[in-house]
């Protein structure tokens, strides 16, 4: 199975996603430069974290115009699994592949720390290996991860079960203190209506080896491997 890791100028978690896919999971992985116009037969597309275009103007705002994004959109429209992590999530929102927007963290400071998120839905290619209610310990590292959407959109996301990850305490309970950035409804990750495009602020690729303090991110990447294996894609 082949992971395509899209590299925008300023992406900086591209190597981390590549390493997790290739060296931890033992899958194929390939970098795709943002000016490329071909996903080269990828089975999964990863938009990695970082600061595409320096995060200037708004996070993800400029990257969404990169040539490769037209292919990513086609791939997503055809049902291919796409995951946007941190800055990649921001790009997917700007591109309209996911709904909502990300504002500055409520206390404005960049935050790098481990948080807990609850898996809210297990019928996406990136959560199918997890149980609903499972709590994952994952790192965040962002200054603008405060999820926002208008009330109707949030209601629709909830009704359609498109909220995939929610910040929570270690025991899975909800509390304002467990919400690191002020996200509406403690939303840490969402999917599209087709459920094949997922975006989240925490970094599962940073939590794939015990020496790094957590292996809870593995389930996200392993899910897509088994999801694709089940459909016979690779």
């Amino acid at each position, binding site marked *: 199975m082949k992971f395509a890791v899209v590299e925008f*100028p300023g992406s900086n978690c591209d190597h981390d996603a590549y390493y997790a896919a290739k060296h931890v999971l033992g899958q194929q992985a390939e970098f795709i430069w943002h000016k490329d116009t071909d996903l080269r037969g990828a089975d999964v597309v990863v938009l990695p974290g970082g600061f595409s275009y320096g*995060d200037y103007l708004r996070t993800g705002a400029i990257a969404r115009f990169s040539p490769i994004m037209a292919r990513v959109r086609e791939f997503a429209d055809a049902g291919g699994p796409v995951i946007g992590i941190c800055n990649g999530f921001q790009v997917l929102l700007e591109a309209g592949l996911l709904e909502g927007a990300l504002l500055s963290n409520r206390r404005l400071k960049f935050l790098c720390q481990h948080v807990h998120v609850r898996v809210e839905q297990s019928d996406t290619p990136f959560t199918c290996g997890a149980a609903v209610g499972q709590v994952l310990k994952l790192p965040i590292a962002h200054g603008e991860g405060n999820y926002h959407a208008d009330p109707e959109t949030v209601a629709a996301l909830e009704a359609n079960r498109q909220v995939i990850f929610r910040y929570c305490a270690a025991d899975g309970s909800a509390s304002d203190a467990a919400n690191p950035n002020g996200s509406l409804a403690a939303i840490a990750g969402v999917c599209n209506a087709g459920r094949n495009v997922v975006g989240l602020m925490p970094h599962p690729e940073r939590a794939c080896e015990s020496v790094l303090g957590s292996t809870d991110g593995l389930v996200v990447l392993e899910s897509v491997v088994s999801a694709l294996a089940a459909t016979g894609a690779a």
Partner: protein
Amino acid sequence: MDQSTIDAHGLSADEYQRLLEILGREPTITELGIFSVMWSEHCSYKSSRLHLRRLPTEGARVVQGPGENAGAVDIGDGLIAVFKIESHNHPSFIEPYQGAATGVGGIIRDIFTMGARPIALLNSLRFGALDDPATRRLVDGVVAGIAGYGNSIGIPTVGGEIAFEPSYAGNPLVNVFCLGVAKADQLAKGLASGTGNPVYYVGAKTGRDGIHGATMASAEFDGHSADKRPAVQVGDPFMEKLLLEACLEVMQTGALVGIQDMGAAGLTCSTSEMAARGDVGIEIDVSRVPQREAGMTPYEIMLSESQERMLLIARRGREAEVEQVFEKWDLHAVRIGEVTGDGRLRVRDRGVVVAEIPNRQLADGAPLYDRPTERPAYLTEVQQLDVTALPAPADLSQTWLDLLGAPVIASKRWVYRQYDHMVRTNTLVLPGLGAGVVRIKGTSRALTFSVDGNGRYCYLDPGEGGRLAVAEAARNVACAGAVPIGATNCLNFGNPERPEIMWQFAHTVDGIAEACRALEIPITGGNVSLYNETDGQAIYPTPVLGVVGLLEDATRVLTRMFPADSLEIVLLGEAAGELGGSEYLKVAHGLVRGRPAAVDLDRERALQRLLVDAARDGLLRSAHDCAEGGFAVTLAECSVESGGVGARVELPAPAGPDDRFALVRALFGEAPSRVVVSALPEERDRLLARARAFSVPASVIGHTGGERLTISVAGAVVAAIGLDEAEQAWDNGLTRHFETAVA
């Protein structure tokens, strides 16, 4: 050239005379500007060079010593570690966010210029007292600036230190350390050679920013400094990220002869230094330099310190390869000149020569001063410490909590959680838990780093302060289980034209040199920042040592935390410390006095070797050295954040004078060469035997477990605190100054 112009360029009469001799004529204004920056303290090290020669720079692992953009040491597996520390003190005082950000940008360029991929950043910061709102704004801006740049470019900031003392109120210190890894055979150099080879400029356009930044860093501040501000440099981490990737990629082509960043003194320094290293001449035409502002003069272009710019020498005939790589990254390499055989730095403007200087005399002929030194008068007075005149502490438990909450000791989480310390997925020890540790993917090894320097010790005893700084940084690295293999240093001092400051400098350098020799840690480079004074008030003399350690087996890494209940706690080294220069004296009595405990370098070396040896053989579960706050603070630091592992220890009855402070010395006294370790009960005897073999005093003093921290002396409990109150004091000590509600 009229006298006021010469004076405005900071050249002394002798220096100007020397310039006239070199040129054999009056300089043009552009030439005067070039000499003035190249001969500034910042670029020429004219006051410090003589002393720096005493630092040991050789060792079996040294691949590159001082003289290049950064030093390098061999780390096995065909790899080298390239590292350096640099100051950005003056710019950070003027504009904290941008000053600190561009400091990070500058040191990163020094590393990738050498062909190394930067993998870790650390910083060492000093500010005035936190109760001053102006200081808090500075801290806030500096931390945000470091975060803004490092996070964006994607290099983890894995450690550092921050301290607060009134002496830094008018002159904060911002020292940034960066380390990169390169293949041993791919070390790039800042060197020009090959007559006719093209000179390329790449990166941001040149503006009027920071003109005379190097000269500014070579003068002290006064009440009018605000008016002298040159256009402040603004960092563009996005541009630097592109430059970093593109430069590393272009180096792979083999089409480059040399490469150097444009740091202090910009185009002037980079052209002149590269030509000097290759013993060639260089010629550029400033009209080809990409410019951001209209109407810039050759003088301004040569002296601009605009950020994110690189100078490259390509091999003739391979220009297309170079240009192509930069195009891929949307950067445009512009050819601005060529290497010549005549040994001159020649600057043209649309063909017309505006400066022509024999380059060797410019670069290597800078003045060298043996400035007078004189023992500072204050020393005799401040070294006196008569504790009998002080009130004895009433409640040692409360003092313990007060120390845990002192900003110098308290948790730095408010700072480091603003830094992305995990990007690149190599960080094995998170900030706050000990020295920074980063694994080297593809090998079994990890590198460990610590930056340390106690300005208070150095103020009270410069020579000892220098020795202590080396010992502490190396000990921190050894506590992680790593062998210290190299060091870099940043020497922050006041005005070198004052003999007392020069005395501090000379003695500190001697102390560093002696300790590095004894501990066999070569210095591969560094930076000197002088004139850190405002209105005649100098900072504490502050050397910051950045020590790099190599951990052969990354899985053996240790942190400060007690990982479990029922472990044996062993104290390596002597039981009690000294009160001179201690945090206790400052917190409990508001005093900075006495002499810091001296380091016995043989003992220190034995202790560090024991730590590395015992860690390698799996005899240790944690290790943490006794620093500010002494034994009691160290013990608490092994417990806080560990998820509730308390400890109960028993110290021997204190020796020393019976002056009501014997217990205080045991609990809060400071001394080097002391480490608190934990071990499994079944490993205890092996550990003790190992300590004996290394001639390191070791005593089993207690065990981990419970919800409290209890210290007894001679059978009686003398201090006890709950883990939760310890945690709270420690957590809030720094944070409370910045956040009303704790997130």
